[in-house]
């Protein structure tokens, strides 16, 4: 029984990552109906930015808390800007093009980010060990062990997601975003600047992915240029589980996927973990393609 609860707790922590990355997919999909294939790679770039920041800082004997804060900040800023850049270069010129062209362009962008990282000196194709080691101490509640690291990551994820939800629901910019998601043309007639709002959506989604990237580096302790590929697939699955385009749904989807996957790998063996996750995606599309809280997606092809 302890294994069961331990897997559930582990799944919740991993699910928090999934949710954070999935939010970027979901917001972009909600506003321009595009699956941004490059999103997982933005998360990967965030991880590398954090890696370099921490390496440079700790190489000079910097302060730990300050270093972490700076790593998060830089990752959020750099990846956020990169996200808007991706939209400007690869998606904006194609906004009225057939959806196939847009998807291919997104795929090209994903290849550019993955293989661009290979070219940057100090990054390359090898697995890099994250230059930060939070003591793996923790505590035990009801026979389930939790490390402080997990708790830290979990709380940061919740804060970021709460902040996003507040922004979208309470601020005037968030209101504009929701208006565009509902009806692009009507929103434009009401004086909302679509281009600006799309840029902002990409900025926000990418920034969250950047933060998630740093957390992943801290949590898994190893990063690689292909880590975004797998994460992108998982996050998309999470978004579909919860209902793509719906923010609370996406967060729920992240946690559901994390827990299901943890249970699956706990009982089937970790080498089947990804097969399990992607099989869930296919099964879900058979039985409930709209996800838990999603809008109808059938009809429109």
């Amino acid at each position, binding site marked *: 029984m302890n294994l069961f609860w331990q897997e559930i707790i582990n799944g919740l922590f991993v699910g928090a990552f999934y949710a954070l990355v999935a939010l970027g997919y979901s917001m972009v999909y909600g506003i321009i109906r595009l699956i941004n294939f490059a999103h997982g790679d933005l998360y990967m770039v965030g991880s590398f930015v954090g890696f370099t920041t921490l390496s440079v800082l700790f190489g000079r004997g910097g302060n730990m808390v300050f270093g972490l804060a700076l790593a998060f900040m830089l990752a959020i800023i750099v990846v956020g800007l990169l996200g808007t850049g991706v939209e400007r270069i690869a998606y904006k010129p194609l906004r009225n093009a057939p959806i196939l*062209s847009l998807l291919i362009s997104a795929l090209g962008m994903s290849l550019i980010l993955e293989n661009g990282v290979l070219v940057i000196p100090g990054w390359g194709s090898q697995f890099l060990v994250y230059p930060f080691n939070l003591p793996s101490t923790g505590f035990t509640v009801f026979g389930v062990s939790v490390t402080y690291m997990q708790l830290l990551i979990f709380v940061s994820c919740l804060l970021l997601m709460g902040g996003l939800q507040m922004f979208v629901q309470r601020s005037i910019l968030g209101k504009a975003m929701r208006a565009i998601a509902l009806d692009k043309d009507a929103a434009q007639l009401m004086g909302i600047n679509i281009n600006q709002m799309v840029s902002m959506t990409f900025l926000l989604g990418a920034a969250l992915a950047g933060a998630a990237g740093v957390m992943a580096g801290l949590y898994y302790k190893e990063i690689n240029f292909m880590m975004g590929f797998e994460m992108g697939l998982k996050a998309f699955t999470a978004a579909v589980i919860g209902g793509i385009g719906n923010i609370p749904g996406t967060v729920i989807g992240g946690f559901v996927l994390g827990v299901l996957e943890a249970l699956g790998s706990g009982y089937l063996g970790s080498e089947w973990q990804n097969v399990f996750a992607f*099989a869930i995606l296919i099964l879900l599309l058979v039985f409930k393609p709209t996800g838990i809280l999603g809008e109808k997606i*059938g009809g429109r092809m």
Partner: protein
Amino acid sequence: MNIGRKQRLPVVGVALVAAALFPLLFPDPYYVELGVQIGFYMVLAVGLNMVAGFCGLLDLGYAAFFAIGAYTTGVGMTRFHFSFWLTIPFAILFAAVAGVIVGGPTLRLRSDYLAIVTLGFGEIVRITANNLAITGGATGIFAIPPLRLGSHLITAKIDYYYLMMFLVVLGVMGAYSLRHSRVGRAWHFIREDEDAALAMGVNTALFKLYAYITGAVWASMVGAVYAVSMTAIAPESFSYSQSVLILIAVILGGLGSIPGVLIGAVLVTALPEILREVSTFRLLIFGILMVVFMILRPQGLWPENVRGVFKPMPSVPGARPDGATYSAGGDGD
């Protein structure tokens, strides 16, 4: 760049003779090996072109079907001592079943869902091959017996060169006749405007499934040949980047254009060989090309001759400017 009907025969003839003479003029094993490589990418690109080019379905896990065929033949011949020909029906069956399982539910949804589901499916197949004992795990299957034609064992690379040439011709002929059939016209209609096709009574979900399964079965048969020609297969040959390379050949060459995708296949295989020093950048270069092409030239290097599919009425010759308008498929939102 379109060739008229009259010039087509000599051009095809010259290309065939050149391809047939190539290994005789350049008997260097390196060139023959490269020729076999190009042949595999050509037949796979022709197959994916039926899915992505003719019907407009973005399949990001095409290598999975290639893997299904290769592993069916590999396992069948080494573990069960089947003959090559006996493994083919199984390869077809498994690919078709997998195609129905993956495509059936997904093709009813928005077309971009297919892209991501096929991506996941590609990973499922690769990881499964990597984990199972019968597929040899990460080392894969080796010592696959050679192909036997009558009493002749095909082992020499040059034999495979001509076998691949034969498969390319077969695939191209099949693709041409499919494109001009009722099914091909339905695919074209779906690609150009799915809602209109549905409104005109085309069973879009069914025809999309046909396209997906046709591509799947073809890739699976090519995979079977791959297994006997390589004599060893491993999961890494069927990774995501393999699927992406085949797709790049189709996109850069020209979605829907058969001569285009053949050129694309040559490009994808030969470019990294020519630019050896920058081989680490090849996917970066291809990525940049994909974005640039989609923005500036979505029809690819050698655009599809749209007029060849829907012939204009005799009374209005040239009603459509020749190949001038072409949209890469799907619909605008």
